[in-house]
């Protein structure tokens, strides 16, 4: 905060119209020369008021709106809303739907991590790997376009199952896409993680240790990079995550470099999950239960491990056609507030380091504002 110690320093606006800002969001930075002394988040540029809008729409209309909280990772939210309503209705959805939802969830995670790789490469000045990761992400989007019919927003995981049956060549298509992505990601990994500029800018920079990370409220890859192997998919399994084999990649130092490494390892784990799940998708199996028009009173809760951390969706019904209240956890809020403040307090962060550290935490600006 702008206390007495920073009263002599220079206050600088960083963002929202700044290429280094992670989306449409601003910071007030207090500078002493090159060094950042304090940073204060200025949110609200992406506010739409979802929680209020969802109270004014019918349950099935909210499928379309529920996942727009975070543009970069909509599939996790889609799954979260579908799961919360399933629990509220006490539905046990068909096995096939569970497997397909998992595949969609994991492809969404890959797309989100690759999008992050673009932003991260840009902030250290390596545009080549950024271009490559967008090209690799295009493969995921092509898969979505063929299976779901849209590139970014999908509305595919709906309460009761999946919206429609998968195409006949689903298995071949998925395996082919997975192979292609693996090939491309290996290149990006080698070019980015072994690059000496990237190492110099990220190793030992932005350190958040495990114990601190928990107290700051951080979840997801940024927590795992600090050595805490906490993943909702393992701790509180949803869908069929207890039936597939995968590891939780963790880092040691909790610096920006570890966070990058963990994200790339996660892409490989996601591909591993996809390859196991696609074997279980049998043609001809049932894939959806129909929603009733009205929903009984009660609450539904879903906890989902998204690309950035734990999303928790809480829906409250008092009967009728519309939800009474919808509440969502913001995963990026700790990353953009407490985490960055912690780093600035403990390290000498220069203004050039600021976008790199922020980029390595991978916040999603719209999910703070909602």
């Amino acid at each position, binding site marked *: *905060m702008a206390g007495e110690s920073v009263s002599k320093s220079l206050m600088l606006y960083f963002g*929202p*119209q*700044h*290429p280094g800002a992670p*989306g*449409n969001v601003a910071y007030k930075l207090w500078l002493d020369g090159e060094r950042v002394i304090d940073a204060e*988040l200025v*949110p*609200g*540029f*992406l*506010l*739409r*008021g979802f*929680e*209020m*809008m969802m109270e*004014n729409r019918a349950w099935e209309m909210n499928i*379309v*709106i529920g996942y*727009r909280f975070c*543009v970069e990772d909509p599939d996790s939210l889609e799954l979260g809303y579908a799961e919360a309503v399933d629990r509220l209705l006490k539905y046990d959805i068909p096995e096939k739907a569970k497997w397909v939802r998992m595949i969609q969830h994991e492809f969404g995670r890959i797309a989100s991590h690759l*999008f992050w790789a*673009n932003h991260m490469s840009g902030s250290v000045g390596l545009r080549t790997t*950024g*271009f490559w990761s*967008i*090209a690799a992400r*295009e493969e995921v989007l092509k898969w979505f376009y063929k299976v779901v019919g849209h*590139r*970014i*927003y999908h509305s595919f995981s709906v309460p009761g199952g999946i919206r429609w049956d998968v195409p006949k060549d689903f298995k071949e298509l998925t395996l082919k896409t997975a192979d292609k992505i693996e090939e491309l990601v290996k290149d990006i990994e080698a070019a980015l993680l072994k690059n000496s500029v990237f190492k110099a800018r990220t190793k030992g920079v932005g350190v958040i240790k495990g114990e601190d990370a*928990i*107290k*700051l*409220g951080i*979840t997801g890859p940024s*927590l795992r990079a600090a050595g*805490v*192997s*906490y993943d909702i998919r393992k*701790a*509180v399994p949803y869908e069929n995550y207890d039936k597939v084999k995968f590891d939780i990649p963790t880092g040691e130092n909790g610096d920006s470099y570890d966070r990058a490494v963990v994200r790339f390892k996660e892409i490989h784990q996601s591909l591993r999950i996809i390859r196991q799940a696609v074997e279980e998708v049998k043609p001809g199996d049932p894939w959806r239960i129909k929603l009733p028009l009205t929903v009984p009173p009660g609450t539904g*809760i879903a*906890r989902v491990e998204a690309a950035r951390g*734990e999303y*928790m969706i*809480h829906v*409250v019904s008092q009967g009728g056609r519309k939800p*009474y*209240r919808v*509440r969502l*956890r*913001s995963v990026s*809020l*700790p990353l953009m*507030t*407490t985490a960055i403040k912690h780093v600035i307090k403990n390290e000498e962060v220069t203004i050039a380091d600021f976008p790199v550290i922020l980029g390595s935490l991978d916040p999603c600006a719209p999910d703070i*504002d909602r």
Partner: protein
Amino acid sequence: MGLLEDFVAWARSKSMWLVHYCAACGAIEFPPVVTSVLDWERYGYMPVPTPRQSDLYAGMGYLTKKSLKVVLRLLEQMPNPKWVVAGCNCTATGGLYWDSYATYKRLDEFMQVEGWVPGCMPTSDDWFALLTYFYNKVKERPVNDKGSRKLSDAWEKIRKWEEMEREWAEEYWESLKKTEIKVNYQFEEKFPECVERNESLKLCLTTVEAGRIREALKKLYDEGYTLINNINTVDLPKNGVIEVYYIVEKPLEGDQVWVKTYVPRKEAEIDSIHDIYSLAYYIELETHEKMGIKFRGHPNLRKWILEGNWEGPPPLRKDVDIPKWVIKVHYGGYAYGR
């Protein structure tokens, strides 16, 4: 047109620089346009960080009130000739967010727009189609054309709407003071026992009186629930209370405790817990502005996300009818006029 004019038009169309401001969700389809997938540099397009060197602004999706003010200022800084194109349904009609309190509904209420691309969201191919169309269109324009202009009453409109919101907020708090609200809510403190357990989600719901919330959370923190997940609120006007849930979590095991309490609607006040959980500082700010709950002991309780976006009463309260307000103010009272 003479030879010189032809040359100027050609040169102009070949060097369209876009101001790098990704204001909304439509921007996520821009990286494929910019990078090697579609490669717009073939046509001379390029993103630039400063508005003073740019020729083009692309409206990518919904216009929150705070962002629109930034866009208007950018447009004022851009040199002539400047052009505005708009994508996504939200810039044209308000789109999916038609009843949102935080967005303006049409971009052309504030500035002249040269080209539109519909869709939610438009794919990168759609964007590319717009840009190539625009590229050809600019060539045909006269040399002294100044392009898109900001409408003269843009700021005036914004000021008028904000004034109306402020009036509504005053009215709301006045009427809340005058009306008597009876608290009729059954509640029994059970902490530290669980009222409800959900084994599959590892949840435990417990209840505690609002006065003892700090004590309860301090105890949970010492027991290892060091990660704060969220603070949830449910407004119940029939019972005259707002339910408040504090959700804390034990990492590695994944156990969650939901501490439920309530505050009366009329004097919604509760102790702040920002010194126990540092993240609560920000969640409390959000809850304060959107639900109208006052957190005692919070060092800097203020408008945060809503600042510059909404001057009206707390939008999540059940007696604040936002869709009605939006229809009245932005759609001239006609629900389907958009």
